[in-house]
């Protein structure tokens, strides 16, 4: 692969060193200040009690059986969600990206859309669908199969795993499809020429080649599920199933300095798990091999499913129905229902909650806050992503992996930990006081979600053969001009996608916002969560549906404006 060569030409050699070094230093400094230092301080703090260094807090926290239980639950739920998530995501990514299944584009959008919806909204829907007594789907299934009792109970570990899986598999789906699109079609063709059936080809060629991405995708699901607060607090709490995150928040809500310290000590374990997973993922995927697409344009190749085309499409439709359509429809219907004990009907119908959504100052303000914070996080994040992509794929600058590593580190750190660490270090004690501002939210979102954006841009950039840029250079264009004329248009869809991948989870972020919000900076995610848990499920459903409609609208608009080139 010629792409691995040095491409220092992009800048004149004399000044390039300084600019590259400056960029690396700037990004690393940002990450050190807002990521490494707060985390380190958090760990340090958990060892310091009233009278100096002590293991007291740790002893107390880790000898409490409830916490061990929570740790075990976290490992089980996150671990199994990872396994199931990948088992769902890989075939879907292959079907959508590589075969002639009907409605591929539609399904792609549909599955990615799940990423754009707050996970705890799904939790609400599943609560209504699968609760053991009167769950709509439960009752339906029991009737359908003539069962004497309802088949499912959502308030169990299994239920928790189910909801976590249905909401985090899109992370794996996005990661795997991206790698899948990049794979050289001739590799699969070679296998088919050798007489292998499509299925065999997938198992013997596609799967092994994809393995690094699959592992990366799985670990992403694991970390996300392990650091999720919304779903376990809604699904797990009623059944007394605690996870580390719900325990941490419990400790925080004790409302004393000691509670905060306890939360910190417990958070350390989550941090260790997160970073262990991260280490394994870098270890396995250390030799990240990008199959590059050259300047030679090829037609995308497609596997013909033949007689399987219809059955497979039906199967995927059923899956989409159960996992995406029914839960979202449930949420949407809830937002119009007056009395949730009765079915939606003309007498039990109201638009009151939509009125609240559209007129209440509190909701509109929080939506504005989230919009600002998420846009800022996504914009700064994507700028850093582009710079990092350039450093990683087009230069051999020394130390360029350092920011890369730190970004991955931030993503691997559970949200609660990031938030706690930021509160402790950024509230004026060390000269920086951004607590109670939107800035602290933006910083937190960036630390947590930068990775998704960066991976997208880096993979897009690595797909672009350097000769395309060199051709611009040799045509007389300066490197900036070449970047603008050639590189940017080619990676633009990925830049937009990357922007959304940072924007969306930031927009509805709950876990960190729960700890970081202040009077003026409450976010829509937190507002939604309060409505869900304290005020009115219907209003919460209206907010959630509103977010969903917004996402669909933006996606549609992007698609229209760019004639199908951009979509989420």
């Amino acid at each position, binding site marked *: 692969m010629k792409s691995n060569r040095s491409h220092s*030409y992009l800048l*004149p050699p004399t000044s390039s060193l300084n600019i590259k070094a400056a960029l690396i230093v700037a990004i690393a400094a940002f990450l050190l200040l807002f990521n490494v230092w707060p985390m380190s301080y958090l760990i340090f703090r958990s060892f310091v009690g009233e009278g100096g260094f002590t293991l007291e807090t740790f002893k107390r926290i880790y000898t409490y059986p409830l916490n061990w239980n929570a740790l075990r639950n976290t490992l089980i739920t996150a671990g199994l969600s990872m396994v199931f998530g990948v088992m769902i995501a890989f075939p879907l990514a292959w079907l959508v990206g590589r075969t002639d299944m009907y409605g591929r584009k539609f399904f792609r959008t549909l599955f990615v859309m799940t990423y754009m919806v707050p996970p705890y909204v799904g939790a609400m829907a599943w609560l209504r669908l699968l609760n053991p007594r009167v769950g709509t789907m439960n009752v339906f299934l029991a009737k359908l199969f003539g069962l004497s009792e309802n088949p499912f109970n959502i308030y169990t570990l299994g239920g928790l795993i189910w909801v976590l899986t249905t909401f985090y598999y899109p992370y794996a789906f996005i990661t795997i499809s991206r790698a899948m699109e990049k794979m050289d079609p001739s590799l699969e063709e070679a296998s088919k020429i050798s007489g292998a059936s499509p299925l065999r080809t997938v198992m013997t060629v596609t799967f092994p080649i994809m393995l690094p991405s699959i592992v990366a995708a799985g670990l992403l699901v694991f970390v996300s599920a392990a650091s999720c607060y919304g779903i376990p607090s809604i699904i797990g709490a009623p059944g007394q199933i605690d996870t580390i995150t719900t325990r941490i928040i419990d400790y925080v809500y004790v409302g004393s300095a000691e509670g905060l310290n306890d939360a910190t000590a417990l958070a350390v374990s989550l941090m260790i798990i997160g970073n262990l997973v991260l280490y394994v993922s870098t270890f396995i995927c250390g030799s990240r091999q990008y199959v590059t697409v050259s300047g*030679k344009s090829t037609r995308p190749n497609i596997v013909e499913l033949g007689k399987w085309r219809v059955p497979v499409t039906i199967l995927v439709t059923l899956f989409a129905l159960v996992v995406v359509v029914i839960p979202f429809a449930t949420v949407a219907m809830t937002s119009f229902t007056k009395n949730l004990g009765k079915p939606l009907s003309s007498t039990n119908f109201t638009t009151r909650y939509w009125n609240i959504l559209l007129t209440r100052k509190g909701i509109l303000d929080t939506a504005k806050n989230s919009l600002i914070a998420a846009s800022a996080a996504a914009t700064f994040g994507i700028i850093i992503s582009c710079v990092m992509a350039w450093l990683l794929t087009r230069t051999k600058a020394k130390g360029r992996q350092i920011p890369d590593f730190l970004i991955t580190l931030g993503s691997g750190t559970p949200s609660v930990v990031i938030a706690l660490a930021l509160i402790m270090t950024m509230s004026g004690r060390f000269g920086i006081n951004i607590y109670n501002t939107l800035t602290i939210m933006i910083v937190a979102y960036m630390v947590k979600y930068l990775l998704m954006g960066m991976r997208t841009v880096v993979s897009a950039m690595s797909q672009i053969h350097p*000769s395309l840029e*060199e*051709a611009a*250079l*040799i*045509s*007389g264009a300066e490197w900036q001009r070449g970047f603008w004329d050639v590189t940017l248009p080619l990676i633009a869809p990925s830049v937009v996608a990357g922007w959304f991948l940072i924007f969306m989870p930031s927009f509805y972020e709950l876990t960190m916002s729960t700890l970081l919000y202040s009077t003026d900076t409450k976010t829509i995610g937190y507002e939604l969560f309060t409505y869900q848990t304290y005020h009115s499920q219907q209003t919460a459903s209206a907010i959630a549906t509103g977010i969903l409609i917004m996402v669909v609208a933006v996606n549609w608009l992007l698609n229209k404006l760019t004639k199908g080139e951009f979509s989420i």
Partner: protein
Amino acid sequence: MSSITLTNITKYYGDVQVIQTFSEVFSDKEFITLLGPSGCGKTTMLRMIAGFERPTTGEIKIDDKIVSGLDVFVPPNLRNIGMVFQSYAVWPHMNVFNNVAYPLKIQKVAKSEITTRVENILEAVHLSPYISRMPNELSGGQQQRVALARALVSNPRVLLLDEPLSNLDAKLRETMRYEIKDIQKKFGITVVYVTHDQTEAIEMSDRVIVFNRGIVQQVDTPLNIYSHPANEFVADFIGKVSFVHGRASDGYIALDDGQKISCNGRKTGDVIAAVRPESVTVF
């Protein structure tokens, strides 16, 4: 009038030396081929001329103007060079016209002139009917011509070609060889051509530079390289050859088994003789 002067060029990647000290002058309108197996340093050489790599030591001059030296480095965009890449590097998001017009747009040539010049160059490479096609609607050979047209459109002083034919089928390759040669004559430019294909080298070049492991083995006309290879590697790399050991004296080589073969080399003593199949006459 476009010559390229290379003086004491070396190139290191870290501690690894990929090009050993090399000096040569490519004269105006000359067709120079850099020939050698994969990884021999020929592409690195070409990229140094283009300006994508900077030599570790030495000086490169184009038309007596230093483009790369101790404290001078002209970036590729200012060297006025045309280049065709192995992978063509045709921009997939621009149609044929825009691909070819790009260098002229950079030079801020007037719109009407751009259109004429692009049309003319496309005519020359037989692509006129495809002017508004997107690259993915073109065959490999056609994409290759787009790349060639783009490299030539701004009338560069020097044209660099990096294995441009390696992705084409045998038949097309043959046609393209003549076309490239034709175009070189028509445009009267200096061409540096990189290939690992000896046939291309011998058919097209005025002079061939044979590389192996970063070391220049021989610089000469194709005929001389074929008939008077400088060493075993060159002899082996160019054409079919068998090697025999023997002692040379007075126009004869005495083989180990006592046979004698006539030869016109000047060497005497223990030698290895390279025998071309066509020079063997069987009685």
